[in-house]
């Protein structure tokens, strides 16, 4: 296999499929059965090239496959909603596979027809992480295809209802065509304008001059009448509804400039401004297109959240079960949720003992145990046993729907940002001819023969680029550089808000801590730690890894090792019988009073937010290991640097206050700005409170943080975040730790400094140019020469700025 033991340590090797540590006794080594199943599926279909294509080890963990059955995908109502029949009798569906992220994923997925008989075609769209599958429904049900994808590590779900998507795709294509036309018109009009300007300098025969005027009239008419008519339509709507709209002044500028130039062309006297008009149309359309795309990505992620609640529920009716659409669920109904299904409604457990994956709501990936009487939320996934639930809230009143609503509201609040550059360009287009007219009139009294010439010179010399381009260009350059460093910033306005921020609020996990358990304390006999490490030496479970840490090279013989899933492990090491696992698992072999005191202690530990792992030695309590999420080694240093930048740092966390306090102490964060035990709603309230004292950056990752991310001036989502968090966030950081946060702050401040420099410079330039023209010092020829100079100056200042130039080194991860 190409993936040999390159990253393996002496005692373990890398799992062939996912690269995690695995026992090295077999030829292809696996860390778990899931990886083995995925590997054998890929290998038996002759697709092992996948492993050479993908770039391990930085590829990182593959998502573990779930136990989901995907049975709902064969339901007729599901087909009616998501599946299209194609002309050749095949079915087609577009699936979203969020875990697809590289060329190798694409290569493997497009070979789905070889993995599953009956699949005719699979086409990947890498950017949107979607897969278009065409298959023969008689040969294979959709659920089997989905299960195969799941085995490979790509849990699938259908995209939003199709008609909506088709409409959006059509709109996207139309926008692109419009931008293309506008761009071509602008380019040609500019070429003709260059000829005409050159004519002012060199002299031009009247014939070609007339031709260039007429040609630029033609291309500009096309630009105005086709792509540009959207401005007129919006302006008309704005007049009718009497609501001010940015397109109104733009339309006025277009009509005024166009009318003036048209008369000049027809009469053959005066200047034409067709180039500025068509360039204006092009720039505005392109800017709006990019903005729209960004907003759509956000709303997609919110829509994806909705698909996480099932569309059907199994309602208990007397002694039987009936599948009902989720809309017909009423309060007080009793429903059954099978293992692997996500919950359709909020409710209380009536029967069943299980655990749920609440990562969607809390960001906590560890399953939460639940029992009779526990409250559960829609959107969480039942991992263990069959549950009976009494419905308390459905549909829009569930907690998940509430969070989704908060995210949507926040997105709307931000969407209609009227671009400063737009307004400036519009003002310029209106203001320039007016100012030129004033100059011409003034000079009419001083020296009539130079009047027109100087009016033209003013039109040429005043540089909207210097003012209007400086700001967006610096921001765009900054955005691009930041993206290359793994900082995805959603807009230029975000840079401004980051630069003005004075307070950073962090969620604990992922930013300050490593996000994996570590032994924080060991209560009891230290000498048995090597024995425990040896016993745990064969499993990839995070708890086992934590217990092994620091004792990797212990070579003790283990006999009779037995694992009990979800409880612990027993075995004989160095002649002593060890029992390591959950308190209840070990308590069984202890004498009653020792068991009772141990359980009391472990309950207390659990209340403090740590995970107790108990070690029993020969039937006696040996030790209790306290496992917790450890603080990143570089956290204190990074927090100190943020302090040095004049930022206050605080923590808002859903974890137990004592844990949060401990983390804050070790990271050097003042305890007065640290709050633990917060619900998502509390976080929003805290963020809003903090905003009273200035701009606030909130850093988080889970869906539970989504609303707080949206509520903050700047929401920063970290690497492992859920999609809702990404939708609500303004910045997405693809690197771990706090270093990128420092880069973000420093880079944003540099960008804003550059912008201010540029604005001042172009203001001075324009003032000088206008004054010079008013005094009659600037001729059209001179103007045509110095105008590009100012643009070039502005461009080079923006491009040469040190914005987001240097990335702080990312600390090495012991488990990538």
């Amino acid at each position, binding site marked *: 296999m190409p993936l040999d033991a390159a990253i393996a340590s002496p005692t373990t090797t890398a799992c062939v499929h996912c690269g995690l540590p695995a026992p090295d006794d077999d030829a292809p080594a696996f860390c778990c059965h899931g990886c083995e199943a995925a590997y054998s599926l890929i290998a038996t279909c002759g697709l092992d*090239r996948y492993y050479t*294509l993908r770039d391990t080890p930085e590829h990182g963990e593959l998502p573990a496959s779930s136990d989901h059955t995907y049975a709902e995908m064969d339901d007729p109502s599901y087909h009616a909603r998501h599946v*299209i029949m*194609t002309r050749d009798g095949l079915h*087609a569906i*577009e699936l979203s596979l969020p875990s697809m992220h590289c*060329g*190798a994923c*694409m*290569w493997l997925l*497009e*070979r789905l*027809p*070889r993995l599953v008989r009956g699949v*005719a*075609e*699979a*086409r*990947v*769209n*890498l*950017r*949107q992480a979607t897969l*278009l599958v*065409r298959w023969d429904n008689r040969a294979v049900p959709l659920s089997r295809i989905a299960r195969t994808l799941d085995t490979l590590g790509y849990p699938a779900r259908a995209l939003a209802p199709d008609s909506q998507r*088709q409409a959006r*795709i059509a709109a*996207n*294509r*139309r926008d*692109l*065509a419009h931008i*293309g*036309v506008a761009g*071509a018109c602008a380019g*040609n009009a500019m070429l003709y304008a260059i000829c005409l300007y050159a004519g002012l300098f060199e002299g031009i*025969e009247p*014939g*070609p001059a007339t*031709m*260039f005027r007429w*040609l630029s009239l033609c*291309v500009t008419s096309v630009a105005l009448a086709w792509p540009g008519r959207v401005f007129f339509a919006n302006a008309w709507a704005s007049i009718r509804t009497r609501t001010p709209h940015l397109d109104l002044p733009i339309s006025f500028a277009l009509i005024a400039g166009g009318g003036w130039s048209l008369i000049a062309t027809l009469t053959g006297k005066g200047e034409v401004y067709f180039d500025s008009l068509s360039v204006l149309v092009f720039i505005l359309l392109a800017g709006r297109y990019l903005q729209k795309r960004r907003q759509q990505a956000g709303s997609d992620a919110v829509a994806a959240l909705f698909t996480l609640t099932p569309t059907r529920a199994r309602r208990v009716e007397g002694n039987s079960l009936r599948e009902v659409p989720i809309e017909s669920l009423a309060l007080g109904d009793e429903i059954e949720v099978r293992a692997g299904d996500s919950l359709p409604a909020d409710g209380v457990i009536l029967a069943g003992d299980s655990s749920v994956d609440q990562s969607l709501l809390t960001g906590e990936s560890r399953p939460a145990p639940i029992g009779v009487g526990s409250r559960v939320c829609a959107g969480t996934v039942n991992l263990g046993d069959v549950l009976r639930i009494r419905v308390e809230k459905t549909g829009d009143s569930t907690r998940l729907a509430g969070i989704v609503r908060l995210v949507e509201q926040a997105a709307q609040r931000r969407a209609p940002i009227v671009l400063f550059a737009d307004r400036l360009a519009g003002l310029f287009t209106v203001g320039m001819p007016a100012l030129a007219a004033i100059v011409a009139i003034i000079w009419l009294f001083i020296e009539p023969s130079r009047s027109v010439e100087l009016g033209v010179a003013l039109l040429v010399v005043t540089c909207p680029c210097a003012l209007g381009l400086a700001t967006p260009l610096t921001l765009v350059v900054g955005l691009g550089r930041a993206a290359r460093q793994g900082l995805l910033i959603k807009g230029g306005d975000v840079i401004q808000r980051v630069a003005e921020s004075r307070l950073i609020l962090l969620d604990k996990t992922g930013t300050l801590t490593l996000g994996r358990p570590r032994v924080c304390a060991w209560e009891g006999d230290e000498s048995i730690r090597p024995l425990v490490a040896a016993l745990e030496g064969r499993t990839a479970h995070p708890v086992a890894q934590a217990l092994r840490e620091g004792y990797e090279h212990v070579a003790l013989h283990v006999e009779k090792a037995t694992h009990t899933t979800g409880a612990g492990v027993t075995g004989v090491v160095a002649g002593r019988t060890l029992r390591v696992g959950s308190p209840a698992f070990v308590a069984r072999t202890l004498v009653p009073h020792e068991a009772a005191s141990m359980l009391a202690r472990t309950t207390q530990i659990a209340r403090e937010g740590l995970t107790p792992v108990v070690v029993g030695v020969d039937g006696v309590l040996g030790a209790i290991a306290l496992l917790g999420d450890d603080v990143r080694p570089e956290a204190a240093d990074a927090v100190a640097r943020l302090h040095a930048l004049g930022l206050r740092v605080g923590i808002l966390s859903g974890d137990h206050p004592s844990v949060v306090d401990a983390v804050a102490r070790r990271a050097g964060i003042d305890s007065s700005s640290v709050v633990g035990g917060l619900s998502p709603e509390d976080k929003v309230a805290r963020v809003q409170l903090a905003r009273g004292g200035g701009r606030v950056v909130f850093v988080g990752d889970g869906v539970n943080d989504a609303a707080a991310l949206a509520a903050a001036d700047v929401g920063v989502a970290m690497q492992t975040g859920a999609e809702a968090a990404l939708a609500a966030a303004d910045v997405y950081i693809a690197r771990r730790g706090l270093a990128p946060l420092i880069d973000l702050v420093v880079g944003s401040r540099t960008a804003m400094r550059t912008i201010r420099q540029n604005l001042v410079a172009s203001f001075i330039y324009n003032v000088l140019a206008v004054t010079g023209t008013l005094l009659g010092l600037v001729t059209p020829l001179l103007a045509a020469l110095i105008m590009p100079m100012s643009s070039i100056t502005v461009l080079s200042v923006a491009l040469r700025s040190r914005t987001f130039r240097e990335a702080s080194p990312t600390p090495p991860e012991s488990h990538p």
Partner: protein
Amino acid sequence: MSVLYLMVPMALVLGIGAVIAFIWASKTGQYDDVDSPAHRMLHDDPPDPQATDTPGNKTNSRTP
């Protein structure tokens, strides 16, 4: 300079041709996905007799 009367309109006609081609390309969905084809090209494997239904004969259109 009378050659300009021929050359400039000709250049414009060529430009119009390019614009028409662009409109056609965007309306048939060729810009819907600009990332995947680059990867697809690099990762093609030797022809496989089993895979009769190769994706190559399909258009890139998102409307099946």
